[in-house]
């Protein structure tokens, strides 16, 4: 059982969250470290700061890929827990930090930490994905992510008046696209029914669908119903 705070720390709870059971924090850390990718993602840290210099999120948030790499390398499960609560959703996932001369992959470590946060249904993960549910619904149920009919002025007022032009003329402008697969409005392109069934099987067989159960129960229920109904129609047993 890990102790809450190393004896040499000046503060009893330097990483915050003193009310959270250290055993729980340590369990989450172990989940992160158990991922098969981690041995390729962390080798140590020269503290050179290159990853911070190239990081877009570090310029606009109180965020540092170096702190992430160092916390994991030091096995500081208290700090890793704090970062899972406060930092990981600020990462841009651009992977500029792969420029690390030590060969670390802070962006990849964050991907793993995010997956654990989702699997655990952390409140901060739910908060980070607020307003994002419709995107998860779209990609998991249709096999394409941002559909043309999502381009609505109320959703993207900051993208300029052209968004309204697109939404007003959507059906017409889509029919004016020469590739036959592009005549769609609710998906990026026309995806065949058989392909969708195969995608549903992938989500269900790999546990990807189950992952969202704790972060968005309602969305999970809807998606599960959509997929099970379609698979049942095809006579496919899960």
């Amino acid at each position, binding site marked *: 059982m890990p102790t809450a705070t190393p004896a040499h720390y000046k503060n009893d709870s330097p990483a915050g969250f003193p009310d959270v059971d250290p055993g729980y924090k340590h369990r989450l850390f172990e989940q992160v470290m158990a991922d098969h990718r981690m041995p390729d993602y962390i080798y140590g840290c020269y503290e050179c700061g290159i990853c911070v210099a190239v990081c877009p999120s570090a310029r606009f948030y109180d965020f540092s890929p170096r702190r992430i790499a160092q916390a994991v390398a030091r096995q500081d499960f208290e700090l890793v827990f704090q970062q899972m609560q406060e930092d990981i959703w600020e990462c841009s996932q651009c992977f*500029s930090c792969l420029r690390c001369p030590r060969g670390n992959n802070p962006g990849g470590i964050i991907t793993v930490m995010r997956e654990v946060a989702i699997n655990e249904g952390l409140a901060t993960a739910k908060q980070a994905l607020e307003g994002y549910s419709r995107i998860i619904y779209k990609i998991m149920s249709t*096999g394409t992510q941002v559909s043309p009919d*999502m381009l609505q002025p109320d959703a993207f007022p900051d*993208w*300029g008046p052209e968004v309204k032009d697109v939404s007003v003329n959507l059906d017409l402008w889509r029919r004016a696209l*020469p*590739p036959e697969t592009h005549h769609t409005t609710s998906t990026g392109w026309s995806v065949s029914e058989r392909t969708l069934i195969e995608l549903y099987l992938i989500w269900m067989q790999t546990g*990807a669908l189950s992952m969202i159960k704790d972060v968005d129960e309602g969305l999970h229920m809807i998606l599960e119903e959509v997929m099970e109904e379609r698979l049942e129609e095809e006579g496919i047993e899960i």
Partner: protein
Amino acid sequence: MSAEPVSVVLAKKQRFDREADRRSADFHEEVFDLEARGEWIVHRVPEDHVSVSTKYGLSKKIPRSHLWHHKSCGQCGHIPGYSTSIFWLMRKLGYDYDDPRDQTSCTAWNYYASATSNPAAQAAVALRNFAAAYETGFYPLIHCGTSYGHYKDVRRELLGHPELRHEVRKVLEKLGKPMVMPEEIVHYSEWIHALRDEIAARQVRDFSNIAVSIHPACHYYKLVEGDAIFDPDIYGGQRTAVVTGIATALGADVRSYSTWFDCCGFGFRHILVQRDFTRSFATTRKLEVMKEEANPDVVLTHDTGCVTALDKSQFAARAQGHDVDVPVMSEAQFAALAMGAHPYKVCQLHWHSANYRPLLEKMGIDWRQAWAEFEAQLEDLRDGGKEFITWDDVEA
């Protein structure tokens, strides 16, 4: 300490040698070894291909024809002139292709935004698409930079983890699909780069007075960096050669800027639910720096997210006095315009937000007349004379 003139520093950089210890391993041997052991089928690059050099000097085969177009969510969804231009270029050069319906998104935009997936699901999605391409006989060509980078990462993981291959194999068996790994994972911008001389030979518009700045896409050359195209004759081999190669071949005035390594600010999650970050980064770290240091007529890039972030961030930033006003498009659209493509029927520039009209004028294109031509086609759709515009209509 005396300050060296910038030109002296830059001249030193031209003699740049890459450190040997950063060299990526050649994955091809492992890919073929797994085929020999019966683990998967390797989808060979067709005979009709061009060989190019990657970052550490390894050779990469880029197929010319018989390509299976792995489309991009964002391109098809809100920049449809991007994918249409790629198809158009291929048609004009006389190369056959397949535009499949048996294709899903790589789903990596969502994965990098929300992490609501896992390595087995991501690898199964990739290999399902590779199997679908293999079944048609056409070779996969990846439109999206994120799909391309992500698939390279998936390949790296599959090569290193037998237990992941085992898990994915079980899923594919359930689908009735074979395990297939392409010999090379190829991005469309690599196809354009490899064929840039063929494209330039068919150029009908003079671009010598067009100044361009180039944003290289992070997921193209930072994810599995050793498999991206570099050329010692382009930026001394220090930056990827794609996009710059075609812009140079078309005679455009390529202008560099200091923040070329920075990302566009897309952020995956941020572009959808936290766009103040995207807008701030795209404007202050990319567009304004380009404007101040290079003053381009157009910004070219080669990925869905980058076109989106750099184009769509400009409108609201104006309200805070950040008025860069520079059009943004893919090099596929730029190359198509050079070869005479219609700015609306093919390049679909009316889906873009930043003002592209001064650029068209500089290219010698009468955008008012072009819009009238496009409107005439729309009229055919409105009055029911036609249900869809076809490739034949575009060429009419």
